[in-house]
């Protein structure tokens, strides 16, 4: 209302000139924005090595000793690997558009590494033993939570096949070793088939927030307590790829 009163007090020529200036300004903005949108991006940073992960095959379980243990089942026929998902790179912070942009050829992207090979390499780097290969469950196009917990290998993610970058795989193995060293397991806790699932809230630096939560008890309360104790005693953990909730499974094999 105030604006209409103000416009009504001006001459018609002034109004026309104002309209022309408005359109000119708008056109200049559009041109600038289109230029920004269509400009080629700066040179991409070196891409991290990407691991293809096939969740159908699980990592081997350590061999069980004892006369009553059944022999491992023969490996079933190989299952077709699901197509790996495209890795989504983290977005960069916005930058000013350079006046002259050179577009260097992107660095040679390494060939995707098979999960088992990468894990073996990582274990070798970390001085750990490479376990023997295990049988893969057949027909596991979709893996339930229970099956996942029972068969998911260290470093594997998701269900039905997914990808896991090398940094995460490295962190998983380092964390396994770190927590295992703090997990005191009196023999009386073993050979009872106990397993517990614990959720741990981690900071970006590996600090443990609060007390880990037992989300699936083993049935042995002292076994569960001891798993929580192991996480707390090993804090801080290696800095995780991302802060937030991580799931730990404690079992004897």
């Amino acid at each position, binding site marked *: 209302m105030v604006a209409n009163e103000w416009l009504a007090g001006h001459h018609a020529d002034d109004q026309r000139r104002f309209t022309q200036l408005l359109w000119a300004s708008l056109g200049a*903005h*559009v041109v600038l*924005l289109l230029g*920004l*949108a269509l400009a080629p991006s700066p040179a991409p940073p070196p891409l991290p090595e990407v691991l293809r992960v096939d969740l159908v095959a699980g990592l081997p379980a*350590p061999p069980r000793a004892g*006369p*009553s243990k059944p022999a491992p089942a023969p490996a079933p026929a190989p299952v077709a690997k699901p197509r790996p998902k495209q890795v*989504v790179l983290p*977005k*960069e912070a*916005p930058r000013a558009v350079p006046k002259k942009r050179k577009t260097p050829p992107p660095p040679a992207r390494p060939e995707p590494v098979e999960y088992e090979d990468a894990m073996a390499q990582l274990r070798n780097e970390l001085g750990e033993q490479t376990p023997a290969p295990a049988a893969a469950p057949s027909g596991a196009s979709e893996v339930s939570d229970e099956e*996942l*917990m029972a068969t*998911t*290998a*260290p*470093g*594997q*993610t*998701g*269900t039905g096949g*997914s990808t*896991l970058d090398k940094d*995460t795989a490295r962190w*998983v193995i380092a*964390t*396994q070793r770190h*927590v*295992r*060293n*703090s*997990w*005191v*397991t*009196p*023999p*009386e*806790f*073993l050979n009872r088939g106990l397993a517990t*699932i614990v959720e741990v809230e981690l900071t970006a630096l590996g600090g443990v927030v609060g*007390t880990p939560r037992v989300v699936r008890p083993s049935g042995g*309360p*002292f076994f569960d307590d001891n*798993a*929580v*104790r*192991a996480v*707390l*005693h090993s804090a801080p953990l290696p800095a995780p790829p991302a802060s*937030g*909730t*991580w*799931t*730990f*499974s*404690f*079992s*004897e*094999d």
Partner: protein
Amino acid sequence: MRRSARTLLLLPMIALGWTVPAPAEERPIIEIHPGKEQAFRVAVQVFRDDLRPPDPKRSAALLKAVEEGLDYNGVLLPLAREAFLGPQTTTELAGSRRFDCGDWTQSGANALVEGVIDGGGGEVEVSYRVWDTARCARLKRGTLVRPANELHKLGAALSDQIVEAFTGTRGVADTEIAFISTRLGYREVFVIDADGRNARAATRSPSVKILPDWLPDAGGILYTTYLKSGMPDVFVTSRGRARAGRILRDVLDDYPKYRGVFSPSGDELALVATVGEASDIFRVSRSGKKVKRLTNNGAVIDVAPTWSPDGQQIAFVSDRSGAPQIYVMDREGGDARRITFQSNYSATPAWSPDGRWIAYGVRTQGEFDLYLTDPSGDVNVPLVVHRRNDEHPSWSPDGRKVVFSSDRRGRHDLYVIDVNSQRLQRLTSAARSNTTPAWGPFSDR
């Protein structure tokens, strides 16, 4: 026009890289398997001593007893004092919170024990706290009282409490073992602390005693002795409410009774007696008013009963197959099945407190070894194998250890083996024979 304006507004945002955040990716499950560490580390402070008159050695003696008890139990091991980053001595008992847990975890301690000594009237009283350093939480608190001259047993009892705080099952450093020894000339019932200290006679009379077994409340020991008539009968030696002397006088009074074994509840006994051609097993109420014959196989010998922890089954030795072997039957005497097949002579079964195992002796090449089998007989594993005789196993009440007698040093002595670690410890070293041990139950004396 409005649509055009919205588009114009969105363009800069798209150009500057604004996107809708992607859903969080599924994260891996980090699987943890057991490492090498099998024993918790516990920092035991020197307890503050408020007892009068002051004795500068008292705190140190108690600390030594606690650490020896922990070492005996083997579940939590004492942390070296040089590693302490927290105070060496208890000044005040902390309430429900601590503020120095980080010092203790960095010391490598999983647990911290603090305490104060007090008492009077010839008794020592210890108030203690057991802390979980990782959680910074108090796991257990309590008070223990013992005569002033039993400081070592007080420390052993405290070590058992610490073990219970971390595992849910009390330790056995403060338990006792009954056995038969000839150190007084006759075969007498003796009792020894579980760590081998303080052997003392529980009977003293000029007659042969054999096969001791504890009352479930630890208030007495059942044993067999031979009367003047030459007939064996069952007696109790008591330090509690149980009346000492001959028991079950009116049960099978005219027949030899070779052995009695109380059921876990203490309401019944499995009694071995010879009524017909050979010995059989009977189930008898504690009062002696109810008697049920469980085995009756003519000339077959059925002996050495041991109850399952739930009292529903009995394992025993029978030669019904032509040689002594271990069998399991239900409490009514039915469904008897053989569970040992390893050699032509198996004997002295002992059912573990958790019900998972039966320890027994196997004679091979003329010498006995000890084995474990599960109650179905499907699993059979060696426990003690030695070129000399290892016999008469008996389980500790926590199921972690087995005591047995062995002549590996020429005469029979008592040994304790930790079932998990296989650590072996000799309990007796007297010049005379020490045989047929029976590990006593937990006691809250």
